[in-house]
């Protein structure tokens, strides 16, 4: 088996992986390789043909392919090896990586640092347990997006979408524009899962019905989906009896959330977090294994690609510092604890002496919110579940926190 010794291997060439490789290379790492499963870099961005990307990072409103192209250009102008059509099959605790492609066969990479940038997957029907038959015509929203935008197929003509996450709402608009009848977007919560901008520009603009506090309770059809049964739910998301009705359709799209893809992390024995479903990391984005870092949607599901890029850059910079032996570590770590109304947060632990950026996601939107970080309070006009909040902890306050050994984050209504 060919063995390649490198400074850094990046697993995944999407938004996070490209940013990580570029930053690591700019930070002085000479020998960087990106391993990408698909035939082109860019990851999910290539099928996200809509605009809304780059507003924060570039101060421009770009489409997914345009956003990806900026990084592909930079990547190819640098001394970074990009191995396409390359599947990573194993990751071991000693950081060695086994991968396979048609040029090199099965090969081993022995890196001084690894960045995990494998992204995430969509929840499928079994994960949300909808009863009924198993006909054709049930897709995740992201798969439908690929079929429509890359391959040129419509998933159906009469569409019901379950879940009002951003992908679900964007597909509602896309399918409406392509001539489908989008009969309803069904959401179990009392508010949309995705951004307000998508609610207005994808649903309201085209009068697509949004059924809040509703669930799909059954799927009909033998060979092909014939329809779905929906019902209202109460505050505890229990189905309200006698509120059921049927909608005929030939396609059900599921947009029920994303799960970080951590099969390789699990194999390597990297500790995972129950709240994020991603690796437990410190403020350098280093996982429980020294020299293995994680960035982007493999770490937690992000709201905007701009944030994924920044996360990738952070991991790239810190991986370079790690290789140069520059990451300063305290023997006493500070645990970051999720309190009231916190859905997820990273990093889960603080080990160093520098300013920290916490990334927080709340469970429920709160108007007039107060975020409590240790003994500091910060007020917000609104905090929503659909956007991450970034909060800084100054290096000067770390010593006090280190004595306590923990810092708790909570979010309340004022």
């Amino acid at each position, binding site marked *: 088996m060919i063995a390649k010794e490198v400074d850094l291997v990046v697993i995944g060439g999407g938004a996070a992986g490209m940013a990580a490789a570029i930053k690591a290379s700019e930070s002085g790492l000479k020998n960087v390789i990106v391993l990408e499963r698909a035939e082109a870099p860019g990851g999910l961005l290539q099928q996200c*043909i809509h605009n809304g990307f780059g507003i924060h990072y570039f101060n421009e409103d770009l*489409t997914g*392919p345009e956003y990806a192209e900026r990084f592909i250009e930079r990547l190819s102008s640098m001394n970074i090896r990009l191995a396409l059509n390359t599947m990573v099959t194993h990751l071991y605790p000693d950081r060695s990586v086994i991968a396979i492609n048609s040029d090199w066969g099965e090969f081993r990479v022995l890196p001084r640092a690894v960045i995990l940038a494998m992204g995430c997957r969509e929840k499928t029907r079994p994960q949300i347990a909808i009863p009924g038959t198993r006909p054709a015509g049930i897709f995740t929203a992201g798969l439908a997006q690929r079929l429509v935008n*890359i391959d*040129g197929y419509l998933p159906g003509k009469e569409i019901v979408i379950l879940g009002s996450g951003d992908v679900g709402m964007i597909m509602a608009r896309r399918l409406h524009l392509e001539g489908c009848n989008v009969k309803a977007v069904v959401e179990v919560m009392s508010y949309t899962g995705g951004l*307000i901008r998508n609610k207005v520009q994808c649903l309201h603009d085209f009068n697509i019905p949004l059924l809040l506090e509703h669930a799909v309770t059954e799927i009909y059809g033998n060979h092909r989906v014939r329809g779905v049964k929906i019902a209202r739910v109460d505050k505890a998301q229990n189905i309200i009896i006698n509120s059921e009705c049927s909608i005929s359709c030939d396609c059900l799209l599921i947009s029920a959330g994303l799960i970080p893809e951590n099969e390789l992390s699990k194999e390597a024995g990297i500790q995972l977090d129950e709240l994020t479903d991603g690796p437990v990391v410190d403020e350098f984005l280093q996982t429980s294994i020294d020299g293995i870092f994680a960035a982007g949607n493999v770490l937690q599901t992000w709201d905007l690609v701009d944030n994924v890029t920044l996360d990738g850059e952070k991991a790239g910079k810190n991986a370079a510092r790690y290789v140069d032996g520059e990451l300063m570590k305290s023997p006493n770590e500070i645990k970051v604890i999720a309190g009231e109304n916190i859905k997820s947060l990273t990093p889960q632990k603080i080990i160093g002496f520098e300013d920290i950026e916490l990334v927080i996601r709340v469970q429920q939107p709160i108007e007039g919110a107060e975020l409590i970080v240790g003994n500091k309070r910060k007020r917000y006009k609104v905090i929503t579940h659909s956007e991450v909040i970034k909060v800084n902890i100054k290096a000067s306050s770390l010593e006090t926190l280190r004595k306590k050994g923990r810092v708790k984050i909570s979010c309340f209504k004022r």
Partner: protein
Amino acid sequence: MVLDIKEVICIMCPLGCKMKVKIEGNKISQSQGNKCERGLIYAYQEVFFAGRILTTTVKTANPKVPLLPVRSDKEIPKKRLIDCMMEIAKHSIGDTMPAGQIVIRDILHLGVNIISTRAIS
């Protein structure tokens, strides 16, 4: 003078204020529901110049890349989006195309071009 009341949801921040605005001629004379001034600016834009960037695909002759992603280079009036989709459906391109190239010039005489958002080689 034309008097009209419209509902607008502001998208300037996650609050998503539901606004009711009173329209008199070419002005918003009164607004309700917006919690800040930005709502008014947004509502004015939304009532008088509601436009959207249109993103879709155009058929190609390249079997490896059957669709070219495209966008409008300016906003298209909301009411003309479907008309533009029907027009774009009539077009197809060859098997190569650089990024940022005009695919349809001045679509439906709206003063807007449809441009490619990736290269196909």
